[in-house]
């Protein structure tokens, strides 16, 4: 790469960060996410999976928040705080990977369906529609039941059932982008399919993709907890399995609000952080939105 290109890249990154900082809500979202991810990553340095062991619970059963257990305990006397901390690893991992899987499948098929007119596009579109009308939760349940309840299975089950809406969205955006005259100009310059899709279509659908992925991570976390609630758990503690536990053990009737509310609050906070971050990214990455804000 020539020197000019490198200087340009660095300047672009600097400009990007300067723009991003002008969106306070985006910065808040980013900080929350960073904290959540860092906490999840460093958790093994302080605790291990034994905090989720039903027989190693040290506190009283369903004890309200106290100095020993700041966020109370569950039905087996385990610390809710430590469970949430350890469970965040599973929840975030499933959320990220399932969303990534769904995004990759959705983007590739969406762009292909929009870019290749004729029979290729038509076939992809039919397949997408077929997946779209499948009740995705039921499909995910069945898939998870057949494949067993490992974390990888849950990720695949969520990823494989949630891509069609992304594909539809990306296809529509691809069609809109490809109708622009600069695509025609690019063809005339001698561009091939790879150049058109990666240099023009992909960067144009990226902001949309980002927004849709943030929601996808959020919905994957929610789907995971739904699956756990319906009995197909990842065999590991996550915010979802904690919610199920709270229902199973009648936390609501027992008045153990900390057991229900806190995992739920974690889900809401992370989902919100993703959304704030995605919105800010979108307005920074799209130069046309940027000028409109100025003009």
């Amino acid at each position, binding site marked *: 790469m*020539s020197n*000019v290109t490198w200087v*340009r890249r660095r*300047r672009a990154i600097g400009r990007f960060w300067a723009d991003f900082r002008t969106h306070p809500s985006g910065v808040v979202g980013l900080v929350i996410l960073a904290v959540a991810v860092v906490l999840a990553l460093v958790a093994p340095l302080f605790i291990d999976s034994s905090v989720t062991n039903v027989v190693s619970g040290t506190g009283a059963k369903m004890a309200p928040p106290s100095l020993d257990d700041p966020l109370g305990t569950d039905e087996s006397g385990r610390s809710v705080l430590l469970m949430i901390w350890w469970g965040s690893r599973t929840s975030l991992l499933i959320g990220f990977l399932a969303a990534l899987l769904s995004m990759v499948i959705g983007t590739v098929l969406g762009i292909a369906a929009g870019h290749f007119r004729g029979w290729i596009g038509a076939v992809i579109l039919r397949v997408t529609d077929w997946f779209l009308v499948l009740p995705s939760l039921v499909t995910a349940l069945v898939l998870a039941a057949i494949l067993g309840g490992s974390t990888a299975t849950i990720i695949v089950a969520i990823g494989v059932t949630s891509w069609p809406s992304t594909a539809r969205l990306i296809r529509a955006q691809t069609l809109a982008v490809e109708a*622009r*005259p*600069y695509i*025609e*100009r*690019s*063809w*005339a*310059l*001698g*561009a*091939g399919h790879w*150049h058109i899709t990666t*240099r*023009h279509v992909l*960067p*144009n659908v990226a902001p949309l993709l980002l927004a849709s992925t943030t929601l996808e991570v959020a919905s994957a976390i929610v789907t995971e907890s739904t699956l756990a609630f319906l009995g197909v758990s990842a065999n590991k503690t996550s915010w979802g399995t904690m919610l199920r536990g709270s229902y199973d053990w009648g936390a609501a009737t027992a008045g153990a609000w900390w057991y229900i509310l806190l995992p739920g609050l974690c889900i809401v906070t992370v989902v919100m952080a993703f959304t704030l971050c995605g919105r800010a990214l979108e307005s920074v990455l799209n*130069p*046309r939105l940027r*000028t409109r804000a100025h003009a």
Partner: protein
Amino acid sequence: MLEATDLHVEFSGRGSRRARAVDGVNLSVGAGEIVALVGESGCGKTTLARTLLGLERPTSGKISYDGTPLSYSGRSLRTFRRQVQLVLQDPMGSLNPRHTVYEAVAEGPRIHGLPDEEAVVSSALARAGLRPPERFFQRYPHELSGGQRQRVVIAGALALDPKVLIADEPVASLDASVRGEILSLLLRLRDDLGLSALVVTHDLGLAWNIADRIAVMYLGRIVESGPTEHVLKDPQHPYTQALLSVLPESPNRIVLTGEPPDPTRIPTGCRFHPRCQLVAAGKGTEACTTQPLQVLPATTDPQVSCHVADLVGRDRK
């Protein structure tokens, strides 16, 4: 140099009917020549231009460059693309809003893997009249004026060192006072680099401004062609006469009724006869409604495709 021979382009439209957008065209653009392709919207002039660029495949007939017929395999199409380049009507739309001027101009050289990218970009921008080029590298399209944007598009084409430019309404969306500068640029590129150009337009004034030769298109066919002075000052075809007569400064108007007819339903005989003012005035012949006309050959001499104009021409001699 760039030549279309007996070109037909059809589209399958709604229902079973096929639209014959280009219905038998012979056209050539010589080295260092500027040819204007004139017609109303829907006459097939844009389809013809896209086919000449290899963006649309002809149903039959062929495109040849320097005597070699264009084949649609990847490699030969790529070599062809370096010779024949495109300038579109809307410069804002023809530039990716996310790309800087540098990236927009470097796109062609990158696709073709040309060495010394930065020098190529600089010289292309300078030749398109954006000086000093370095000042424009980091700008985005929305930061430029309409005229500057169109210059960037032209620079993007020049970066590949083409021999022919195909410009589709290159100034139609520009401000009136900027038009002249862009047209002068096309003329200068012809003089300095020997660049040929095919300018597609509905604007006869523009053709008068820059074209050496004019081809008038009606419903998929060229109905009259020849040197600009000849066609615009002494039009032979009744359609060309009507087009010229509705220009604001002309004294006697021949306003044709109706709008350009449908390429899915091309009339029998002469395709212009339902709107022809000569036929309407009873000056037509029986051949006008029954006998199809020959496709005009690709020649630089004045020629016209009309049953009646031939007679008129003979009478004059």
